[in-house]
């Protein structure tokens, strides 16, 4: 375990406070000309997603967090548990529904994702920015209606509901932005 001193503080640093990993998402250095250096930090809890604002003074230290992002593949769901495999080591990791949050919507077998490990234990998962999913069910498409601003709900192969344009039909493959959950385009019919 190494420590970071205030001089090392910068955006993107992964640190540990009270046994939990945090990402330093903002860092403001402030200092009166003749005064103490003050480090205003915004810290995001990597397990719970909550944020914390903390002020440190020159010379303070924070423990580094043993946090590693590893490339994985989604394998399957078992009850409320999602199972992933490390594509380099073939280790398998399990994440609960709470840890997955909304990203379950994009989990189709074989999807490449990245899993965040803290002390070698999985704590969260990030899907790729875009996924392609097949429409399993929707109201029939309105032929010739190419407008993309009028939408209808469609159910994709993962069971998630996405808003898509009226011309989309069952069997179409859609490209979806996983950061916003929004439809981007139709990939195939």
């Amino acid at each position, binding site marked *: 375990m190494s420590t970071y001193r205030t*001089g090392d503080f910068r955006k993107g640093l992964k640190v540990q406070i009270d046994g939990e990993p945090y990402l330093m998402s903002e860092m*403001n*250095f*402030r*200092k*009166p*000309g*003749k*005064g*103490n*250096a*003050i480090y*205003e930090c915004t810290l995001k809890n990597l397990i719970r997603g909550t944020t914390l604002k903390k*002020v440190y*003074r*020159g*010379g303070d230290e924070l423990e580094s967090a043993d946090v590693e992002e590893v490339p994985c593949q989604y394998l399957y769901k078992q009850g409320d548990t999602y199972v992933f495999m490390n594509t380099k080591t073939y280790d398998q990791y399990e994440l609960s529904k709470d840890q997955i949050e909304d990203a379950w919507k994009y989990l189709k077998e074989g999807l490449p994702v990245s899993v965040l490990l803290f002390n070698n234990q999985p704590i969260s998962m990030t899907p790729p920015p875009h996924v392609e999913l097949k429409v399993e069910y929707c109201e029939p498409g309105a032929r010739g209606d190419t407008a993309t601003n009028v939408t209808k709900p469609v159910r994709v192969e993962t069971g998630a509901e996405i808003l898509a344009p009226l011309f989309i039909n069952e069997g179409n493959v859609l490209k979806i932005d996983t950061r916003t959950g929004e439809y981007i385009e139709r990939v195939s019919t």
Partner: protein
Amino acid sequence: MDRDFLPTATLDMLRRRAELLQAIRQFFDSRGFLEIETPILSHDAVVDRHLDPLRVTLFTDPREPSRGETLWLQTSPEFAMKRLLAAYGVGRGSPDPALAIYQITKVFRGGEIGRLHNPEFTMVEWYRVGDDYAAGMDLLADLADSILSRGKAERLTFAEAFRRYADVDPRGLEDYEIDLLLTSKVETHLGRGRPTILHDYKASQSALARVRSGNPPVAERFELYVDGIELANGYHELLDPAVLRERNRANNVARVADGKYKLPEESRLLAAMDHGLPACSGCALGFDRLVMVATGAKSIQEVIPFPIERA
């Protein structure tokens, strides 16, 4: 392609910088100040708990570049400028009993990187023999008005600013608490509309200023704020070398307690003060920040062509 070769300041910003440099020179030249240059690299360093000068080894043998005398990049040109005042501005028959000097120079402060900080920056510093506390503040207010045209500076005591904006009496606070409240609550209100000159600092924050006795005693130190940004720091200068020796010693004790390196307590400034420093007031202004407030730039990196990451 690596784009790091590009400057972070626009060409238009560099033009504004040049204009402001000219305006400052004109301000001082027209008042009879002599523009001088002093070393950036010196045997002496200001001994301050919270200023960390960068160290340079003056080697004699390039085959052993880490062996040699320790020199310091200046955190301000204060020592050398006061040595000039002691040499040429003292007593009857001195070459100039009303000596006034200024310089525009690069200074360096280790570890200071942020929206308002770059480890290398440009400082404007001036001294005028015979100026007392009030004259020092008047000159700074004139400079601010002349360069920024935002009207006459408001004068606010340190204690009043804390009462007004942090609802607390700074006399009862530790220096660290003062710095924290100053940066988090007080500074943001200063210099809104017209500039603010904050003055009568807590005696523990006197640096190289005189302390005026009273209840409580206050440091005759003043600072200029514009748009919530600290721009300049001035003193009714401390003349007593015994007091400075004691402050240096205390600062080094605090530095060691903080786990920092010690700084040389004896200096040629002390020798000059032993000889006799004339009564004067002086002030140092961060030029890059002045450019920021004059142009509305949001960070110091917008007004410096190559900040430290690209230097």
